[in-house]
């Protein structure tokens, strides 16, 4: 009860821009599930429902010169970097104006200093390489990489941590620990903790429980500044919640777990904090996404040649 109360109190501090972005991502993801449900999307997708606030909180801590590595659950990562829902939707639908011509789709996106790919664990060593480059050529810039709790099963994660700690690389690892990997609860796939693993490599670890944007930023700002100024890598672990299925229609979690995720949904907490302003912003983003879905769906197929 007190925890919820505190979150509600803090939630008042989300400014209009942040709120709009949070809700844009929420409605974008809901629209995707709806399009799938109606058979209008091909392939698969992983929505970040419930986790939208993580990249939104981070965006003000990141600079244009930083590189960002998204992952399979990366629509929020992308939208927090670029105000380009139409380009992303076109990518997912294979329509004209797609960010990557419809070749990469939901999981494989490259734009400026943003990149994502669909193979777990691959991105960390690559991000370390980018961080090495930045350290020499653009001191002060960093490589930020998003990974899930399940991805800590991959050995490449540890090779990258070791390298980046040894060489004090400007690498910011954002762990979205949503307590599950596809169908496997974290307790059944991770021995020990993310914290202890990071610390074993001499890498600093910081845990975040809150979904309050200002609180998160206040906590992280000095730590991220440390990464930029030669302090070596940092692992930030968000305790977060996956609201929806892993991809689509594949949720085998028990109802109690899903209910807990809903109870912790930032959407509810923010709505309760300031119902009227929230409702207006919510409606505006819903309408924006509806219009984008209509407009992009009417576009011709993307063009590309092998």
């Amino acid at each position, binding site marked *: 009860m007190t925890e919820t109360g505190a979150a509600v109190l803090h939630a008042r501090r989300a400014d209009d821009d942040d709120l709009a972005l949070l809700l844009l991502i929420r409605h974008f993801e809901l629209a995707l599930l709806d399009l799938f449900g109606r058979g209008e999307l091909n392939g*698969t997708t992983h929505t970040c429902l419930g986790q939208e606030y993580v990249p939104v909180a981070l965006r003000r801590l990141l600079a244009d010169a930083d590189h960002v590595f998204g992952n399979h659950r990366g629509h929020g990562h992308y939208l927090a970097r670029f105000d380009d829902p139409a380009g992303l939707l076109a990518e997912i639908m294979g329509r004209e104006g797609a960010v990557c011509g419809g*070749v990469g*789709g939901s*999981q494989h996106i490259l734009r400026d200093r943003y990149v994502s790919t669909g193979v777990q664990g691959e991105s960390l060593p690559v991000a370390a390489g980018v961080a090495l480059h930045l350290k020499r050529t653009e001191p002060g810039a960093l490589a930020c990489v998003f990974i899930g709790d399940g*991805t800590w099963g991959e050995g490449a994660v540890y090779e990258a941590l070791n390298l980046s700690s040894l060489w004090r690389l400007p690498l910011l690892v954002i762990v979205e620990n949503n307590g599950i990997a596809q169908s496997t609860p974290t307790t059944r796939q*991770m021995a020990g903790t993310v914290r202890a693993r990071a610390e074993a490599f001499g890498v600093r670890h910081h845990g975040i429980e809150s979904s309050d944007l200002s609180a998160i930023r206040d906590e992280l700002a000095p730590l991220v500044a440390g990464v930029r100024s030669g302090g070596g890598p940092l692992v930030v672990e968000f305790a977060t919640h996956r609201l929806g299925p892993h991809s689509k229609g594949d949720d085998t979690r028990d109802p109690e777990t899903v209910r807990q995720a809903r109870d912790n949904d930032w959407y509810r907490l923010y709505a309760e904090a300031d119902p009227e302003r929230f409702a207006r912003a919510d409606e505006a983003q819903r309408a924006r996404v509806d219009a984008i879905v209509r407009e992009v769906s009417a576009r011709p197929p993307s063009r590309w040649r092998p």
Partner: protein
Amino acid sequence: MRVGENLNAALHGLLESDPSAYVIGEDILDPYGGAFKITKGLSSRFPERVLGTPISESGITGLAAGLALCGDAAVVEIMFGDFVALAFDQIVNFAAKSVTMYGSRVPIRMVVRCPTGGGRGYGPTHSQSLQKHFVGVPGLSVYEMSPLHDNRQVFDAMLASGGPCVFFEDKILYTRHMNDVGDLFRHDVMPGAEDVARVFLDDPEKADCVIIAPGGMVDRAVRAMRGLLLEQEVTCCLLVPSRLYPFDAEPLLPVLRGARAVLVAEEGTAGGTWGSEVAHRIHRLIWNDLRRPVALVSSADSVIPTAAHLERAVLVQDSTIHDAVLEALRD
């Protein structure tokens, strides 16, 4: 029965009949039952030998090799065959090597299952057919699932071989029916080659063209054969080996000799393909009897795009096979 159900039944049967058998993989436990539901029911019946693992393809493949080293039979599910790249070292440098590199034969009974192929819009890292990368590794066998081969028999053969096997499963097949070759054609087992299924019109040795293709291509090849027959009066005989490597062309020669053209079709992308290995073996054996070199059909030399219209342009379609057969028969 659908191919996926047949495969699921094969795994049930294996665990039931062999108390040393394990099935290991990510998200394979009930109620989820695997990303493609192929392991449904296994963990409920055999909780000690069906293990859901962390996301650690290299680790779990090495683990399987360890079980196999102790005499157990281990089946690993790689969620998407693309990720078998992570297990390449364990397969090539440990499991396959161990069979012979210690000077005497060490049996390694393990199968690495790889859901494979495109056509579902999963994108460049979830749609590949990586068979060719496992061709030509001493000690390693490459198999492919087929609607014309009972999976239990194939699993028994793989484990009886005593060496590690990589088993490619075209994902599209899971929902297809076993032994379905349409109403025009018949199918049987190639005489003298138990491992090879045959699809033909009447006399397999009198077909205009012989198509050699792994299981994932059966649907597309049969549809192409149907069109060729009805529209062009061209007859084809389709040969579907279950084991792709090592590949024994010798028993196929009677059928190959009679044909005006021979074609190998596969979904993997062009360049360094399984088909070129097959073609080479056939050329060595009957070059002088062939009217023209063996023709190769594969997907374009390209990544596999996500968008359906782009994906279609890259992957082998019925029409690709249809056109290639006509081209090969042109005088």
